[in-house]
């Protein structure tokens, strides 16, 4: 068990940036998810920690030990690969026993047997131990790969999108199982994923990474409700967050009147928001709001107008895309039992209680309406 400290990790593949200046602290027994789109540098980060890739600059500490000069074998790190990387010539049992039989660990046969059986039972693959890898389903391979990492009892677990090749249902049940398992094991874990739901549900904290740089590290609530940049806000949530440019027309101490989406409207503000808006250089502000917070009305007390562009029923919820007066589209998540005709005129309102304010110049987070900064 150990904490992990990354400082200034940089790795370029030729001219292509793998990661640049990644600094990150992971506490002992913490479960950190690293979230980002494809090619963001997530896997590179894991490979650097595992020692599979050597950094151009920067340093890694696991526990009290600087591991930079150590070979992967000597770091006591276990990794679950996206491709599972099982040894195709071995059986499930041999795969799981392989690390324990290595010259590095070299456990007596009885203990190998006992450990492999223990974790195989825990992962519900004890009936498959004599199977060849080729004869396994994807889910079973995934469990075997997990088992091979678990038997080691390493200081640190690295998981590289372990669930991404499973079908949706299995992925959800494995997610729940992983969550349960992390409680039992209590090992420091870095878990890489491109699925924001996985990142938020599993992680004690989430590190958001894109184009080789860390954008934000925080609790799942922080990254979702107080994204540091527009970029982070866009990465979380499906359908994507709505981002609109608003021109500030006039401001009182308790409300602000803006022109946005082609219409003039106003909403109440707190003194904190007022002082945050004071910091803006121009008269524009960028507003973000989640589709789930948009209210779509019919009876005339909504402030904005539009035309239904598309309507996608998804069961309990439906995604509604609205063409606003200005032509910019707004996504809204509405109740599944409501239906909307395409091209129908509708009214909607932007929730003043859950607006996120961004500086349009720097695209950085200013403030949000219901939560104040520093609040958890």
């Amino acid at each position, binding site marked *: 068990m150990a904490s992990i400290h990354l400082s200034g990790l940089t790795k370029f593949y030729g001219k292509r940036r793998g990661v640049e200046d990644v600094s990150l602290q992971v506490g002992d027994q913490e479960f950190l998810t690293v979230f980002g789109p494809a090619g963001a540098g997530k896997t590179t980060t894991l490979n650097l920690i595992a020692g599979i890739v050597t950094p151009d600059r920067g340093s890694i500490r696991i526990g009290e030990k600087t591991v930079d000069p150590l070979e*992967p*074998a000597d770091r006591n790190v*276990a*990794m679950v690969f996206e491709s599972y990387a099982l040894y195709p010539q071995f059986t499930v049992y041999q795969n799981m026993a*392989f*690390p324990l039989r*290595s010259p590095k660990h070299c456990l007596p046969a009885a203990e190998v047997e006992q450990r492999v059986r223990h974790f195989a039972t825990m992962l519900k693959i004890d009936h498959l131990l004599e199977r060849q890898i080729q004869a396994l389903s994807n889910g079973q391979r995934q469990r075997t790969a997990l088992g091979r990492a678990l038997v080691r009892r390493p200081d640190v677990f690295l998981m590289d999108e372990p669930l991404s090749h499973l079908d949706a249902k299995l992925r959800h049940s494995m997610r729940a199982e992983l969550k349960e398992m992390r409680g039992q094991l209590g090992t420091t874990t870095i878990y890489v994923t491109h699925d924001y739901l996985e990142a938020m549900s599993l992680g004690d904290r989430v590190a958001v990474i894109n184009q080789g740089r860390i954008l934000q590290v925080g609790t799942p609530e922080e990254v979702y409700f107080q994204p540091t940049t527009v970029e982070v806000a866009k990465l979380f949530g499906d359908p994507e967050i709505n981002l609109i440019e608003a021109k500030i027309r006039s401001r009182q101490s308790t409300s602000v009147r803006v022109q946005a989406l082609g219409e003039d409207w106003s909403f109440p503000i707190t003194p904190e928001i007022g002082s945050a808006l004071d910091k803006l250089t121009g008269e524009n502000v960028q507003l973000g709001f989640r589709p789930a917070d948009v209210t779509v009305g019919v009876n005339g007390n909504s402030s904005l107008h539009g035309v239904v562009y598309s309507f996608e029923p998804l069961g309990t919820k439906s995604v509604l895309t609205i063409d606003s007066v200005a032509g910019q589209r707004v996504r809204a998540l509405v109740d599944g039992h409501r239906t909307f005709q395409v091209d129908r005129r509708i009214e909607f309102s932007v929730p003043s209680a859950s607006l996120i304010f961004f500086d349009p110049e720097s695209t950085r987070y200013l403030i949000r309406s219901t939560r104040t900064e520093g609040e958890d």
Partner: protein
Amino acid sequence: MTQSRSPLAKIGKGLQILLLLAYAVFALFPLLWMFIMSIKPDSQMLTTTFIFTPTLENYATVLHSDYMQFFFNNLIVSVAAVLVSLVVGVPAAYALARFQFKGKEDIAFTILSFRFAPEILVILPLYLIYQRLGLYDTYFGLIWVYQLITLPLLIWILRGFFEDISPDIEAAAQLDGYTWWQVFLRVLLPLVKPGLVAAGLLCFIFAWNSFTFPLLLSNNVQTSTVIALRYLASDTVHYGQVAAAAAISALPEVILALLIQKHLVRGLSFGAVKG
């Protein structure tokens, strides 16, 4: 296939077997012909019927001459050539499959180009160089020049096999506590074994059958392929002895191929290691 017992499927299956049989006869006929020739006396050699008095005289003549010495010469240079190719080629194939380096494709192509340059094109300069260096008529000289035949083949076949193995597997094994060498020996080599066997055998066959190089680059250290020429004199041709010599020469290849048949089929049908 098995549950659909329609007449059409049956006919298709029958046709398939028939075609395969025809091909088997076609492919094996030269071997049979060689064997028949080797047990015919010279006087009946040109009869077109299959009626003749079988004799082992041809074999006796060949085995009592110094032919066997050249047979062993061939064995020594061919086996040694394959071994050298394995020692050099396996790491080369691994490097070409795994590492990104400048001029990688150029190097790979240059290696391959050794294979498609006709031997006769390079034999004269090679002859002169070998004379100067004192490599002419030595085992070492032949083993070295055979690398032109064996090495490209081995490298290119094995490269494909190494490329099929995910680098993640290597990384996983290293994380599991093995050094690079142990990973190579315990994880990678078993995975490329079918390719290794198939490529090794093909290399051996090509080296064994090599004619131009031993003909022109050696004299006393001669191989059986070249020596078989001696039965073709300008006045008489001892077809029976040629056939017997050839039959003896073909034996190592046939035996080897039969011994490693299992790996050979897997090795020649690529992608055997996809997990």
